[in-house]
């Protein structure tokens, strides 16, 4: 089916310019064809005789045709015509279903599936599915034909709902988090994933102080995470310090790193700051990799001890002079006790970070951060010292990253520079921004979506990061203000900000 036939089947009311749609759809399809022609259409295969090429042109054709058709349908949806997109979307899904079925039955038709990988096939099917859902939504819930897709920064029903029941929602969430390990469906894997998600929530909340409140774009946040992780590991392995004794030192070290790095660069504006912090993040990683006699080089540090519960260890048998958790409380030993304990440790850490942020927002220093974020020149005029104010935000953010880093090292049992690549910084920043800058619950939501969901699709390993990238772009396009687009009311003198 080509796009032209779709255009003629639809009985066109005069208001909608199908010819224009078709033209643009053909262009979109053609662009896809060009884009895919070499990179998708030709595969480079390494053989003993050097690189060989293999073609896979069916994928290119299917992709171009699909893009053209979907583009046309989306334009129709935007114009408020829902029937044709619904039918064509269903037809595409049905066609796919038949092909999948044929493949399952071993029929020759089954070889005609557009892509070689079933993950991509199923993933691509999400597009017609969302078309169908969208047209159903527009037909039955949004008042039928006339309702045109609303785009933009409107506060959606969800945001409004959240704002009204803000406190209740937060309390319920905390209750749920506390009760999670005791739920019947909670197995070790779930608690593990929850621990990971909480680590990122804590990092997100920490970075939120820097990016959300103070408006300083930090692309090297992972550096402080690394400082925390390495300082705990070194204190523990080389000096024999316990987790709880080393924790404040690690936090203080990370914070002072933040101050030292921040001091020279914080007078830079926006994007420059971003790139310098990115540079610092990479520098710390390179130093950790190459300074092998101090940091263990690429192998990192092994055998980092786990945290204890008031001196009670979580092992099968206690080292001399110590008692295990299970012995003390008269329980039978099970490895899940340690997993659950770690979960509660990070839960408490994260909640402390959250509580700290919520309280500090009532203090003058946080007001100063927000004022600086909105207009630095005005702040200077009002006698706020921009550098010191920014430094506190930077240092505090770094401190929480340091705590989270110590926890990370203690949980993993080893640290290596591999864990502190730029991608981590990008992920944390994405959590903060996608969650909606400055909102605490938005960060929880974003961390669940970005970290929690992919963990359950580990089978799709190879496609995880691809989906992650697509997700980041799509969420930004649909909701540029983040999932929970809302900022606490700040006093504005005038809206149109000057050149930033």
């Amino acid at each position, binding site marked *: 089916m080509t796009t032209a036939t779709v255009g003629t089947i639809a009985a066109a009311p005069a208001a909608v310019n199908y010819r224009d749609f078709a033209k643009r759809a053909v262009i979109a399809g053609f662009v896809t064809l060009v884009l895919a022609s*070499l990179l998708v259409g030709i595969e480079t295969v390494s053989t003993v005789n050097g690189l060989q090429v293999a073609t896979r042109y069916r994928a290119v054709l299917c992709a171009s045709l699909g893009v053209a058709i979907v583009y046309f349908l989306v334009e129709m949806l935007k114009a408020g015509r829902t029937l044709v997109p619904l039918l064509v979307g269903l037809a595409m899904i049905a066609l796919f279903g038949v092909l999948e079925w044929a493949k399952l039955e071993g029929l020759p038709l089954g070889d005609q599936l557009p892509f070689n990988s079933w993950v991509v096939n199923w993933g691509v099917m999400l597009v017609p599915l969302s078309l169908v859902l969208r047209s159903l939504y527009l037909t039955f819930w949004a008042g039928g034909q006339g309702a045109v897709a609303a785009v933009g920064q409107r506060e959606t029903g969800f945001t409004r709902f959240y704002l009204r029941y803000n406190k209740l929602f937060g309390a319920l969430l905390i209750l749920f988090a506390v009760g999670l390990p005791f739920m019947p469906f909670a197995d070790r894997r779930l608690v593990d994933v929850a621990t990971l998600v909480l680590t990122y929530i804590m990092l997100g909340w920490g970075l939120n102080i820097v990016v959300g409140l103070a408006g300083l774009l930090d692309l090297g946040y992972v550096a402080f995470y690394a400082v925390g992780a390495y300082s705990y590991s070194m204190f523990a392995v080389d000096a024999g310090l316990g987790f709880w004794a080393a924790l404040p030192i690690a936090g203080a070290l990370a914070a002072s790193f933040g101050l030292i790095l921040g001091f020279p660069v914080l007078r830079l504006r926006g994007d420059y700051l971003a790139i*310098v912090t990115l540079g610092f993040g990479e520098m710390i990683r390179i130093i950790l990799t190459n300074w092998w006699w101090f940091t263990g080089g690429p192998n990192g540090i092994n055998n980092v001890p786990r945290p204890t519960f008031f001196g009670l260890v979580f092992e099968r048998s206690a080292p001399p002079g110590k008692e295990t958790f299970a012995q003390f409380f008269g329980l039978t030993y099970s490895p899940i006790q340690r997993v659950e304990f770690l979960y509660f440790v990070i839960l408490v850490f994260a909640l402390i970070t959250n509580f700290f942020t919520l309280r500090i927002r009532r203090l003058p220093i946080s007001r100063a951060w927000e004022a600086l974020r909105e207009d630095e020149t005005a702040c200077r005029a009002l006698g706020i010292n921009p550098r010191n104010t920014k430094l506190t935000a930077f240092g505090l953010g770094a401190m929480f990253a340091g705590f989270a880093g110590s926890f990370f090292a203690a949980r993993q049992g080893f640290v290596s520079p591999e864990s502190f690549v730029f*991608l981590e910084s990008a992920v944390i920043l994405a959590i903060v*921004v996608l969650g909606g800058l400055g909102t605490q619950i938005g960060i929880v939501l974003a961390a669940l979506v970005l970290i929690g969901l992919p963990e359950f699709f580990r089978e799709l390993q190879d496609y995880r990061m691809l989906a992650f990238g697509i997700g980041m*772009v799509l969420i*930004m396009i649909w909701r*540029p203000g983040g999932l929970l687009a809302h900022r606490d009311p700040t006093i504005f003198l005038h809206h149109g900000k000057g050149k930033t």
Partner: protein
Amino acid sequence: MALFLQQLINGITLGSIYGLIAIGYTMVYGIIGMINFAHGDIYMLGAFQALIAFLVLGVLGITWVPLALVITLVVAVALTSVYGWTVERVAYRPLRGSTRLAPLISAIGMSILLENYVQLLQGARNKPMPSLLGGGFRLMSENGFNVEVRWLQIGIVVVTVVLMAGFTLLITRTPLGRAQRATEQDRRMASLLGVNVDRTISLTFVIGAALAAVAGMMVLLYYGQIDFYIGFLAGIKAFTAAVLGGIGSLPGAMFGGLLIGLVEVMWSGYFSVDYKDVAAFTILVMVLIFRPTGLLGRPDLEKV
């Protein structure tokens, strides 16, 4: 002396490549004020498409090197430009007029997307490329240390100079360049005066991507191997170069690229290879602290 001369030659070659990528950053930053984080990956796409084009030409039986080079260059530049255009159209244009952070996040997402796209389609392994332009000549010899200039290095520098000259003409003498400069100064005013701002911005991305594709092809020929991850570091260094030269300034980008290339190569030659990336970043920090507008940049007046 001989080592210095050899490193100087290598540094200029590397610097030319960085300079070509840096132009893409500096133009985009100048015109819409965003760091196009995916630009490094556009360069990587250019290198990959050049590689595939070479292989296809080999299959088709076109083995006369000059012809193959020209065809590859044209194909890689054309296709990569379309990528540049698409990235802008899909990921940045819907966010124009949004917060300053939104396009940056979108760009980071785009960069992750493109890297994984290529990794999934072409595999994560290094892709080797047979050497096409071997040979060179010996410039001098000192205590048994030969200073060699490869033909390829001369080629890279010449192509860069030609492109730079053409590009400067484009910016200063053509209607497109005038539209670009107008959009850079005041987007709203330019659109009121009949400049098609969206088209101008799109073309900026296209030109940036085309230059990045040339750089990608040069790297492919120069190092003889590429992988899907080359865009990240090269992108950061090129951005460093753009900042060093003064962001928004085109000669600055080229100059900054040369400087970064030289520093990196000299550092590897005289100190340690392990820390060559640290050297580039140190320079960036130093420049930003002591001369935030870059070496050739204009001071940016802050309006109240």
